């Protein structure tokens, strides 16, 4: 029944958004939502999409939009497929009085495809915690904003945590660390950073691919059983995560030596494996599950009015991530309005807003996100804005934060970003911006 209600809500939202052109002169800011509520990755896509939608609804209900400009949004189902994602992008990029404010595809594959398109359409891409790691370099990637953390940040922090568990970086020497990864652009992203770390710290690194969607991993885990690595890093998505945990249990690999990326560390990743998940660890894209000040506002202005996209996943990890994603996007629009006035912003203006966004601790607290996010500041050079992460562990019932913030090692990652961004610029014949001349 909930799904039926959701489908009807989506239809109603679509109908609302379709009224956009007719009300082109009204104060409406159109924001598209590329979602996956069906298909193999739906269990992870749904809570994120709900968080995204509920934050926009909150702003409309509580504040009347952003500085009086109402948010109009429309969902487009991608099924996590790159071709459908591009189709959704083409369909939605021109909607609303000023076109799409920004896109958040929630897919590294779609991000790769759109990275080539957005400069021409002048629409920013907000890829919080995913996408091309080198897109942190704003001089080469002016339209990409890989907010909060990249896969290289995640890989580096995971190794730092392993070093801490072992008793120091010197203890990494001679250890075996394997990466079980989704065989896609997403899964391959951390390999460069892990190879760089292996070189510096002297551990033996092995990458083990798993084919989409990841339901068959027996051979990979039998190889792990024979190879006996000290740690396994997991870069999965959707069904692959819970299957990996089950296979780890089946071959007797200790779950507390398996560390997932932040896309492998939500409730749908552990609950299907039941007790076998106990002890499993995963990175946090700064935040975890749980209620914070913003949730009280949501309960008062959205949930109690029956306008929430969903209730079961309220305050879960991916729902909270959706909230943060929408908050960063709308704060970029608000920043742009300071320069261009309180009216619907174009994609180009929103890009400026992103690049000049400065989310201080005080502002984060004011927005109700204290405890979920550390200060974040983009600049022309830095389109990531932050490079810290924490670690959590599943205790059989809930995720528990088990570490303080780790800061990614810039000595290792900065050269990687520089080198790969330069390579991309050469391939695409892009002239990098001179950030010293940007205002």
């Amino acid at each position: 029944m909930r799904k039926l209600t959701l489908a009807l809500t989506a239809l109603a939202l679509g109908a609302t958004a379709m009224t956009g052109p007719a009300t082109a002169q009204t104060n409406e800011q159109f924001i598209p939502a590329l979602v996956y509520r069906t298909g193999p990755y739906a269990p992870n896509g749904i809570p994120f999409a709900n968080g995204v939608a509920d934050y926009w609804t909150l702003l409309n209900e509580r504040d009347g939009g952003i500085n009086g400009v109402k948010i109009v949004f429309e969902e487009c189902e991608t099924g996590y497929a790159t071709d459908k994602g591009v189709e959704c992008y083409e369909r939605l990029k021109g909607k609303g009085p000023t076109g799409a404010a920004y896109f958040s595809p929630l897919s590294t594959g779609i991000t790769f495809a759109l990275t080539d398109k957005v400069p021409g359409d002048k629409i920013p891409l907000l890829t919080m915690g995913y996408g091309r790691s080198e897109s942190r370099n704003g001089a080469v990637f002016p339209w990409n904003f890989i907010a909060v953390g990249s896969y290289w940040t995640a890989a580096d922090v995971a190794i730092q945590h392993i070093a801490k568990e072992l008793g120091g970086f010197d203890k990494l020497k001679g250890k075996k660390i394997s990466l079980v990864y989704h065989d896609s652009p997403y899964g391959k992203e951390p390999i460069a950073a892990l190879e760089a770390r292996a070189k510096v710290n002297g551990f033996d690194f092995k990458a083990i691919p798993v084919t989409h969607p990841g339901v068959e991993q027996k051979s990979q885990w039998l190889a792990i059983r024979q190879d006996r690595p000290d740690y396994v890093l997991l870069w999965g998505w959707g069904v692959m995560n819970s299957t990996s945990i089950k296979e780890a249990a089946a071959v007797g690999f200790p779950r507390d030596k398996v560390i997932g990326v932040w896309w492998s560390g939500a409730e749908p990743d552990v609950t299907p494996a039941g007790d076998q998940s106990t002890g499993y660890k995963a990175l946090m894209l700064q935040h975890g599950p749980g209620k914070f000040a913003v949730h009280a506002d949501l309960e008062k202005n959205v949930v109690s009015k029956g306008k929430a996209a969903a209730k079961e996943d309220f305050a879960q990890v991916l729902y909270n991530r959706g909230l943060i994603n929408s908050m960063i996007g709308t704060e970029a629009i608000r920043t742009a309005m300071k320069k261009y006035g309180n009216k619907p912003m174009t994609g180009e203006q929103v890009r400026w807003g992103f690049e000049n966004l400065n989310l201080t601790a005080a502002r984060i607290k004011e927005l109700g996100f204290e405890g979920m996010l550390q200060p974040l500041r983009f600049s022309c050079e830095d389109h990531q804005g932050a490079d810290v992460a924490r670690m959590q562990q599943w205790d059989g019932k809930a995720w528990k934060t088990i570490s303080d913030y780790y800061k990614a090692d810039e000595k290792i990652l900065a050269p990687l970003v520089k080198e790969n961004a330069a390579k991309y610029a050469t391939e695409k014949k892009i002239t990098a911006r001179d950030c010293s001349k940007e205002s």
Partner: protein
Amino acid sequence: MIAFGQFLEVLVSGLLAGVLYSLVALGFVLIFKASGVFNFAQGAMVLLAGLALVRSLDFMVGKGLPFWAAIVIALLFAAVVMAITAWMVERFVLGPLINQDGLTLFMSTIGVTFMIEGGAQMLFGSDVYPLRLFPSDAWFLFESSFPGGILVSKIDVWGGMIAAVLVVGLALFFQKTKTGRALRAVADDHAAAQSVGISLNWIWFIVWLVAGLVALVAATVWGTKLGVQFSITFLALKALPVLIIGGFTSVPGAIVGGLIVGAGEKLAEAYLGPFIGGGIEYWFAYVLALAVLMARPQGLFGERIIERI
């Protein structure tokens, strides 16, 4: 000794995984054998059966029913859902297409696939729903001969036993019952079967119902292994090379094809994968299927079709 133990472990796990593929392939064989229709919707039927089972089971356990009673009612409910699906497919899709060529019927099952996938998720949800009907831990055999022993998953063994029972049951159904013989007559020639008084509509309903029940059995095993979720539909792609190798019309062929695919892909992943980048098992099954197709187009156990011109 370690290397041989590892080889044995990969081989055994591959053979058992292959039997689980066969469980899905059997549904394809049934419908093709009885109606000449290649049913692309078999993977979607496994999803629908699994969702109906697990959602009704969760509902009744939540209402305080004892697990054994809940499982019996849930199985019955899922069987009724599959019967309704079979009736609707016959009534609204295949019925109007009687005497159309095989390609038209095949295309119609593609449409049925998407309708079942969408309808199942809309009615029962698109989350991952854990199903725990069989043990999911493992045995470690011959530990004295091989360091660490040979790992054998209990759920895979359960799957193998269930497949064996299914094969015997289906063989008896096709060979010994009047309905089974009528199904084979329809497969040979729709018009000829109609002319001797066999009701095509009734036969198609029966065959889709039996395929739906086979899908339900497959869903109990795969649902316990993976959790009931959309990805189960991808099993249809695993069943294709099994069918090509075993033959589209042979029940034992589906089992032998499954064993070859399972063992072949797992051994290839373990021993060939490291040299060519890994992640090869998905397409390696099709390499095996192509090789068989070249040598024996009707599959190892399929009926050779001779058409006189």
